[in-house]
């Protein structure tokens, strides 16, 4: 037996929500990030959230919540280029694009393309490369639009099970697809994939869905079942518990990375390809954990 008040509220909601959706509420992502740089360099927290050579961003706009991770390719260090500069600048630029509304929520590849283009408009001669993964929640339509270039990625977990995941894009072993700016003359030699080559997907999400966006430092060290185990411990949708869960996932992956006897997913994959290795994979780890919740201003 509904009270007058709750009945009135339902009617109002139905009227205001319109006929197009059963649920007229806007959704939002409550997100937290945590990570470790390789070799314990995490202490240097630059603007825009960087963990070693990884970088990430969380941005809000009236129409959408957008997250992104980028894994800077470490090989540039051998040529005197700081690999974190490219990924950090890319993520900061994408964040700015979102905040200024220069994007369409249903087209995350567009964010990547514009972000990459803006990097080329910078007076500073940037060099380097990184993978990129962008996840955008359209508040009104409740659809999650994603794009992924390289071996970072995301998982969508509902009811304790993975319902969506991204695919890795690799050219060959340990060489993911990557956006890059090469030094002059080296364009033919340096791997440079176009933002248009990113995989994109879109799907509906529900309240309570958990979205985990991370770089390969997590996925190469922690198999799905361990991640799901940690996510089961997430009971509430407030920021602090999300942060705590993100921290525990990242820490666990970090510990496993340095365990020489552990059969990590990375080691498993290497064995499947004929390389007899064991142990974790020390790498920068970035974890962005989000829950779909109702939008409150």
């Amino acid at each position: 037996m509904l009270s007058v008040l709750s009945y009135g509220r339902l009617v109002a909601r139905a009227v205001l929500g319109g006929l197009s959706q059963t649920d007229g509420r806007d959704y939002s992502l409550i997100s937290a990030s945590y990570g470790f740089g390789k070799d314990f360099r995490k202490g240097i927290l630059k603007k825009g959230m960087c963990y070693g050579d990884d970088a990430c961003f969380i941005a809000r706009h009236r129409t959408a919540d957008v997250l992104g991770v980028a894994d800077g390719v470490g090989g540039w260090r051998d040529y005197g280029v700081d690999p974190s500069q490219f990924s950090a600048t890319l993520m900061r630029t994408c964040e700015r694009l979102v905040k200024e509304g220069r994007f369409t929520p249903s087209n995350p590849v567009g964010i990547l393309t514009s972000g990459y283009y803006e990097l080329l408009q910078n007076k500073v001669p940037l060099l380097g490369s990184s993978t990129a993964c962008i996840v955008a929640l359209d508040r009104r339509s409740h659809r999650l639009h994603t794009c992924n270039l390289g071996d970072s990625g995301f998982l969508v977990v509902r009811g304790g099970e993975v319902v969506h995941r991204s695919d890795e894009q690799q050219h060959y072993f340990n060489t993911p697809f990557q956006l890059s700016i090469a030094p002059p003359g080296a364009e033919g030699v340096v791997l440079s994939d176009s933002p248009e080559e990113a995989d994109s997907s879109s799907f509906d999400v529900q309240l309570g869905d958990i979205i985990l966006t991370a770089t390969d430092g997590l996925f190469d060290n922690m198999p799905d079942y361990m991640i799901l185990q940690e996510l089961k411990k997430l009971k509430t949708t407030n920021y602090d518990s999300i942060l705590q869960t993100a921290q525990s996932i990242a820490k666990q992956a970090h510990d496993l990375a340095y365990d020489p006897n552990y059969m990590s997913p990375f080691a498993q994959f290497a064995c499947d390809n004929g390389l007899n290795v064991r142990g974790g994979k020390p790498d920068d780890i970035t974890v962005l954990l989000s829950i779909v919740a109702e939008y409150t201003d």
Partner: protein
Amino acid sequence: MFYYICLRRRSRSGTRGEALTSRRAVESGQRAVLPVSVEVEQYAKEVLDFSSHYGSENSMSYTMWNLAGVPNVYPSSGDFTQTAVFRAYGTWWEQCASAPPPFRRTPKGFHSQDYIELAFEEPVYPTAVEVLETYYPGAIVQILACSHNPFSQSPPTDVRWEVLWSGEPTKVLTPQARQFSPNIKHISFPTNLLRLEVNSSLLDYYTELDAVILRGVKERPMLALYKMPVIDINDLSDSEEELSDVGGPFRQGSDGKHQRTGNGYFDKLPYELIQLILSHLTLPDLCRLAQSCKLLHQHCCDPLQYTQLSLQPYWARLSDASLGHLQSRAPLLQRLNLSWTGNRGALTLTGFSSFLKACGPSLVCLELSCCHFLTEACLEVVSQTCPGLQELNLSSCDRLNPQAFTHISKLARLRRLVLYRTKIEVGTVNTSCIEHRNFNCYLSLLKIEDYDVVASMLAARCRSLCSLDLWRCRNLTDRGLAELVSGCKMLEELDLGWCPTLQSSTGCFQHLARNLPRLRKLFLTANRTVRDSDIEELASSCPSLQHLDILGTRLVSGASLKKLLQSCPKLVLLDVSFCSQIDMRVVQELSGLFPNVALKKSFTQ
């Protein structure tokens, strides 16, 4: 004493509390506004219009759109992508041969070179305007407020612009960020449309602006009785002048019989001498003087006084009526500057075309920068009425559709053409401009898709081209450049800034240097492939080089720059910002050896 008396009189009628506040305010030397109104602080909501910017049209790096919204950089200082940057700075562009000579009769108070118009959310009576400048501040010279609400649906009627503040271009000693908040005049209407005018001629590098804050009150502030409004002496020159009033017919004296020629010594002066005296007056003064007596009316309406006419300083007040009144004086007009005028309905095709019909036959130079009233029909009128036109400036006329530019092809004598930030297309350029074999001055394009085609057409037809601006021409390749320099050997100025498809490894820059011995200005801004061998070739082949910009390359060393500076004694501008091998030590060493060269090294932090 005066203030005290006023205060005493007031306290009898007002409340005791009010009187106390007022007296305190007077004692602290501020303008007292009573009673308290809620002050609203707003950042700019939208950038509506501007004359130029450094960045690309689709970009958010160094473009004018960054001036809207909250600051991204302030209080940090440095050369950041998130700021609004104008296209030019200093006097370098004025030193080029392609720069038009300044117009006579420019009023001393008018310094503006660029402008930007900002819309805010709420109309308020402004109490303060703060501009957050984050790099090389000091460029703001005027702040104006408009009575029209740009977000209203109705078309603009009775648009008034009021000067809130006006000043001289300045240069601040260090390039550090600052919050610029001049004392502004109080105006009688609420506004949510501001215009900033800037002049960067004294600055050592590009000025960069981060945000603008408008503080104001919603309710009209009650001005205290004893407030003395600050009269700015610069305001008096043009502020109350209605250009449409002047030039009204000189009324004959009712007693035409009493022909008095009591003009004193003026009657004794020869005609040419009075003309010489009048040539020093500004336009409003000239129009006012015409109303003083018959003799001076005859002098002031003499078309010889109007061979050059710059109406740009009066953009806020120029209307069809003003042009109509000036029409009769214009038949000998050779150079006309209508830049910035006519927006928001002030000028229409009718007024514009009737004026051009009056002065068109003798017109040689027409400046129409940022004239958003222009339509295709207006350009058609230009092509029909100005057969002798040699210089045409249509920069930032971005509302003209590409078709409009086909009329330019009918101007057979065109020597200088500026199409910066216009929507012209390849086909139109080729038919409209390149037909002219005499085309030897200045071409500035922006939005074309295939510049190689343009380059080869220029090489074939415009062999005496001496100045070419291809800033941000994204598709120009070494093939197009090679054809260009082989055909246009007289080139003195070439701007290839931000053309990323030019690769030094093809040898295109060395080929350029060898083929252009007269080269005086070369901009290779943000071409990351420029290397030592290119600099050395410039050193040996281009002894007249004066301006060089090689921003952002990692491949140029101090040694080759030293060779360049030794071989090019006329070099005065060298921009080595963001060149990794050229650090401050190298800059200081080179500055010490070559003190006449302005070495520019920008920084982010």
